[in-house]
């Protein structure tokens, strides 16, 4: 099953890969699959797409394995790749589709609450990709600005600016929908 005929690219020594071999790759995958999936799912808010994008992320990790530096933590590197994959998806994903929610949130919501939540979901989904990503990670998932900045390779101040702009845009979009935030 494992492709043994993969070409040895940069990072090879005497024909042997020294950056990341298949067993190391599998170990890293097993250790970080859930985190990468969770990170992507939080950004794209679609479980099916998150699975596809997790596969895509680890495929890119393998493809660029010569860039892997074993002396540095794997998670920040793979999260940066996952963030790029997720943002690309948001840029091309259809807007204004219903987003998934936790079963608890779905059960707890009354009909009026469901309607408001659907409007909030659509308002978030209609934001430009880079604002949408920061909005969901910061406002919905309550991730720390530093964590978001590192994953998207942007300055901390940019995260804070995008967060503030996202709130403004959300308020405007909700007002346009007839919701008075």
């Amino acid at each position, binding site marked *: 099953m494992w492709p043994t005929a993969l070409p040895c690219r940069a990072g090879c020594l005497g024909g042997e890969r020294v950056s990341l071999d298949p067993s190391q790759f599998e170990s890293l995958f097993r250790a970080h699959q859930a985190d990468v999936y*969770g990170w992507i*799912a939080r950004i794209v808010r679609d*479980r099916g797409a998150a699975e596809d994008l997790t596969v895509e992320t680890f495929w890119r990790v393998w493809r660029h394995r010569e860039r892997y530096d074993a002396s540095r933590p794997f998670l920040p590197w793979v999260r940066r790749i996952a963030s790029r994959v997720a943002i690309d998806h948001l840029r091309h994903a259809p807007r204004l589709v219903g987003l998934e929610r936790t079963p608890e949130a779905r059960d707890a919501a009354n009909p009026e609450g469901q309607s408001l939540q659907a409007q909030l979901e659509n308002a978030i989904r209609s934001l430009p990709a880079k604002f949408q990503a920061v909005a969901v990670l910061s406002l919905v998932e309550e991730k720390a600005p530093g964590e978001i900045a590192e994953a998207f390779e942007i300055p901390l101040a940019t995260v804070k600016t995008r967060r503030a702009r996202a709130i403004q845009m959300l308020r405007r979009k909700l007002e346009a929908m007839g919701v008075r935030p």
Partner: protein
Amino acid sequence: MNDDELLKKLRGMKMPAGPEADLWDRVQHRIAEAPARFSAWDWAIAAAAAAVFLLYPELAAALLYHL
């Protein structure tokens, strides 16, 4: 609804974490099935080479001579 209420509503929309299935088989399939795709840069180089050979066909003979 003020900002605090808006933020509270947003926080109620958290996504569940963790995949429903192990994705290792899919990753292996992806690696095995997908050959390295040409990047835009690769296509640009190929297009430039094709353009050179179309504009200066005599270069093809020179290249073949040196191979």
